């Protein structure tokens, strides 16, 4: 299963690669990284049916995670990718907006990687 991680922090790539090293080695999960909403969209354009799951930060300069979510959910409908939103501000407003725009899940920073792993495995197994 291919996961696209969107975050303006470039170190997130190293972190994910190490956190999911076993899954990557076992080819259960495959990761792609984008460092802004715009990057994420251009990646999706090139790899339309590859990414099954998108993991995006909300607070980013330029296009925010919520805008990205909106665009993904309206553009890529067949099949719609699973989008999980991550934010440092675990407030209701962001949560509700994300839900309204069609986010499949909502995570708050700091990310609980054990929980995330469970969720990803669940989706991968299905």
């Amino acid at each position, binding site marked *: 299963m291919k996961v696209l991680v969107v975050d303006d*922090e470039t*170190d997130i790539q*190293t*972190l994910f690669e*190490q*956190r999911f090293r076993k899954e990557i080695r076992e080819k259960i999960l495959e990761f792609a990284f984008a460092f802004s909403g715009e990057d994420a969209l251009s990646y999706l354009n090139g790899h339309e049916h590859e990414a099954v799951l998108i993991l995006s930060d909300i*607070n980013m*300069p*330029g*296009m*925010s995670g919520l*805008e990205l979510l909106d665009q993904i959910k309206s553009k890529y409908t067949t099949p719609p990718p699973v989008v999980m939103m991550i934010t*440092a*501000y675990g*407030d209701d*407003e*962001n949560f509700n*907006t994300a839900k309204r725009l069609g986010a499949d899940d909502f995570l708050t*920073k*700091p*990310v609980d*990687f054990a929980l995330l792993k469970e969720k990803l495995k669940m989706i991968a197994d299905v």
Partner: protein
Amino acid sequence: MKKLNLLYIFILAFSANVFSQHKTVSYASKIDSLEILLKNAAKTDTAKAHQLAYLGQLYICNDQIMKGLILSKQAYEMYQKLNDPVGRGYFLQAMALVTRDAGTASNDRMSLFYIKAKWHFDQMELSETFPLYQQMHYVQANILESRTLELKKAIAYFEKQGDKEILAVLLFATGYNLLSQNQGNESITYLDRSYVLFKQLNQPEAAFTAYLTKILALKKTSSTEQVKQLEQNAIKQIISSADSREKSLLCLSMFTYYYQIGLEAQALEYLLKAITGFKEINDKQTLIRLYNIAGDEIQIYGSPRKGYEFLQKELALRKELNENDDITYTYITLSFCLIKLKNYDEALKYLSLAEELVNKSDNLYYLAKCFDARGQVLMGQQKFPEAIPYFSKAALIFKDQNNQWSESYQYGYIAGCYYEMGNLDESIRYGNISLDIGKQNNYIPVTLMASKVLSEAHARQGNNQKSYEYLKVYSDTKDKLLQNDIDNRLTDLETQSLVQEAQREKEKLEAQTYIKEKENEQQRLWLIGIACCLLIVLFAAWFLHKSNRDKKEANKLLNEQKTQIEEAMIHLKATQSQLIQSEKMASLGELTAGIAHEIQNPLNFVNNFSEVSVELIEELKSEKAKPKSERDDQLEEDLLNDIAQNLEKINHHGKRADGIVKGMLQHSRSSSGQKELTNINTLADEYLRLAYHGLRAKDKSFNATLKTDFDESIGSINIIPQDMGRVILNLITNAFYAVGEKKKQGTPGYEPTVSVSTKKVGNKVEIVVKDNGNGIPNAIKEKIFQPFFTTKPTGQGTGLGLSMSYDIVTKGHSGEIKVHTRENEGTEFIINIPT
């Protein structure tokens, strides 16, 4: 001449029925009956004296002057024996009758003695007088010569008698008579003698009148220089006259004099002075006459409006005294005033009143005047054919009375009427008659009127040559009028300077007189003076005391106010520093969320990388625990590399968090005021991120594109980092606010963009903060750097951000801060700091 006109007025003022009486009353028959009465009835001495006095006056009226005077004197002597003051009154009346004069003379002499007699009666509270004063008339020109002879006879008689009073009057009357007959030189000798005699008799008014008459005579014979000198003497006498009665009479004489020489302005001046004088002595009877003359004169030569006012005053006085003698003339004059004012309805009212009275009497002069007035009313109403018969009738009567002045006027009016009717031949005919009389007698108004009509009539007939001739006459006469006017003014000026001079002399004299008195009073004055000084000193002391007290109070008040102001100042300063602090805290508040976010991220990395490192070490351990053949050396190598990398990451993100916390502390700390070498790019980037996240923390939906363009060649520059950071933060926060506001307007396709750039320009560093918001309206562009100016809603901005930034850049760093803005396009703040 106009003198004639005046004479009519004056004489008529005293006699209601002049002309009728002249024709009907036979003095001779009255004399006869009285003579018989005197012989037959031997009554009381009083009755006899009364009859004698009356008889004397009758003789004088009958031009038997010598006889009349002898009788008058007898009566006077009888009364004196009886100790009856009425005798003096009758005697003065007789003098008045002697001095009545012929056509060319004013009869102020008559009025002089008449008034004196009247005052005498008033003084004695006697009212008895003979009816002669209502019957007096002027002496016909044709009897002037015989009258002079009669006067001379009387002079011879009374010279022998040595009666100075009668002689003085006779000499004066003779002088005047001779003057009327143009025998100036002879006249002067008589007038001189009368002048001396009047002076001896202590009758200054009479002397003055004689003196003025002498000047009149001199005018006809002598140089103007001499005349001027004499005139000035006369004026001086008036000025120096202290007695108000005497002064009133002198003014009246002066009026007549000026009138006779044709200086109307001066004449009127003295008439008005006389009026003031008579008002003062409360002689209302005379005032009635004077108002009458003034009204008439002013309506002819000055303003009909003013004339009307004087006549109304006369009417008021008449009403008060119930005096209706000769009111006819007043009504007529009033109607003339109103004709001139073109108020014909009102004019007709007075004219009707006059006509009613005229019809009851048989005064032809008034009748003629009424015709004249009615003609003028009709003329004014454009009823020219109806007007002519009235003028003709008036002219006939005036001619009969040898009143050429009024007669010539009628012909002028008739000429005017015919001109209006288009009957030019008749117009010219009457115009010529009028002009002839006018020129002959030097009647300026008549000449003007007639020459004008003639010029116009000839012009209409196409006879331009003739028209021009008459026009020339008209303009020459006008010039003469002008010359008169100039003379008037010159005389006026001379009089004024004379008056001033006399006033000075008078003052000088008075001063000398009072010096002695003053010397006597000196001591008393000294005492009063000392007392006054004492009072002043006391007052001054009190005043000083009071002002000192006031001053103290004022000082106290001032001190109180000073304290209040100082307190307010201290309070203000405290408030100011509070405000600055609150501005710092406000920006810190904006930062807090951003800071939290910024710290959260590195901390997450630190945690995650350390956690994952633990995992990696565990994996490495389990790998090492495997038998040697199963161990993957490459994996072990990879794990070790990852752990090392992670430790680096942990260190990096730890330092990142440390930097943020330091920056936050720096910001909240009061400025050290110390310049430090600082990387301006790092500073700008840091604050940009802080501001962005700060805003995002407050407004989740907010988003903007951040652009940075940092010139890496700048390196570190010497600035106060906290202060400059504050400036950058402030500008960026404002930029975000601006784009946020524009975003809210929902402009389609709008992308909020904020950019921060640095650039080295020569020896300066330029920092630009740019947004694509709505821009700053021109109206407030000038105000943005002012303290407390803010466009944010109340409570959201302190209004100190830009003002503080301005101070930091310009004062703290000797730099400059500029703003470029375009409405709807965006704003650019440019900071220049010397390196």
